[in-house]
């Protein structure tokens, strides 16, 4: 079956612009996660959703970052007034439920802020 998909695969934007990153989780997976991976670094947790609610937003680095999930499926991560330090690969993952150990990752969106 289809895995987690993300779009766009690459996004180049100018400093100060807003961007939206999209994640389509595996069908039926109730839990969805966003992580950020900077060059040569590990993955940094941003936010996770259980259904449409976000019990843990503790990883969002600033109020310029927000995310929503609708219909218990697609999620959008929005970064407003992008800064150069926002440049990274943004990864989305999903799992059957919050307590599931295995998270299935998408290929990521590489964001470059000029």
């Amino acid at each position, binding site marked *: 079956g289809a895995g987690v998909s993300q779009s766009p695969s690459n996004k180049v934007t100018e400093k100060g612009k807003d961007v939206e990153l999209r994640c389509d989780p595996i069908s039926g997976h109730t*839990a969805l996660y966003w992580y950020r991976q900077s060059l040569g670094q*590990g993955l940094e*947790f941003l936010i996770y959703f259980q259904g449409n609610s976000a019990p*843990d937003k503790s990883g969002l680095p600033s109020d310029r970052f927000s995310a929503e999930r609708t219909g218990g499926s697609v999620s959008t991560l929005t970064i407003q007034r992008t800064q150069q330090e926002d440049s990274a690969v943004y*990864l989305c993952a999903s799992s059957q439920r919050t307590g599931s*150990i*295995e998270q299935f990752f*998408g*290929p*990521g969106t590489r964001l470059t802020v000029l």
Partner: protein
Amino acid sequence: GESVGLHLPTLSVQEGDNSIINCAYSNSASDYFIWYKQESGKGPQFIIDIRSNMDKRQGQRVTVLLNKTVKHLSLQIAATQPGDSAVYFCAEKTLWGAGGTSYGKLTFGQGTILTVHP
């Protein structure tokens, strides 16, 4: 604060050798430890996990060892192949907190680059 880190950032081996990738962790409350493999341009892929009440778990060509005394985790890959070349991350997950809340996030280490030479 809690953290998960790796001893060695890079590891080069010859095809056919066994590889050992190490990880140190500091959160003794973690319920599970997980290894992920990330190939270039792809998202991480689950390899194997081990529950905190175990000290060894085997999979296909991989073995994970957990030493809670020294808070150390390792991934052993037998007969390493060129296709095993990737970045390997350890991660930890705490399932339950106060009030029975289930936590979702994984906390990842920095990663080890494994290069397998034919």
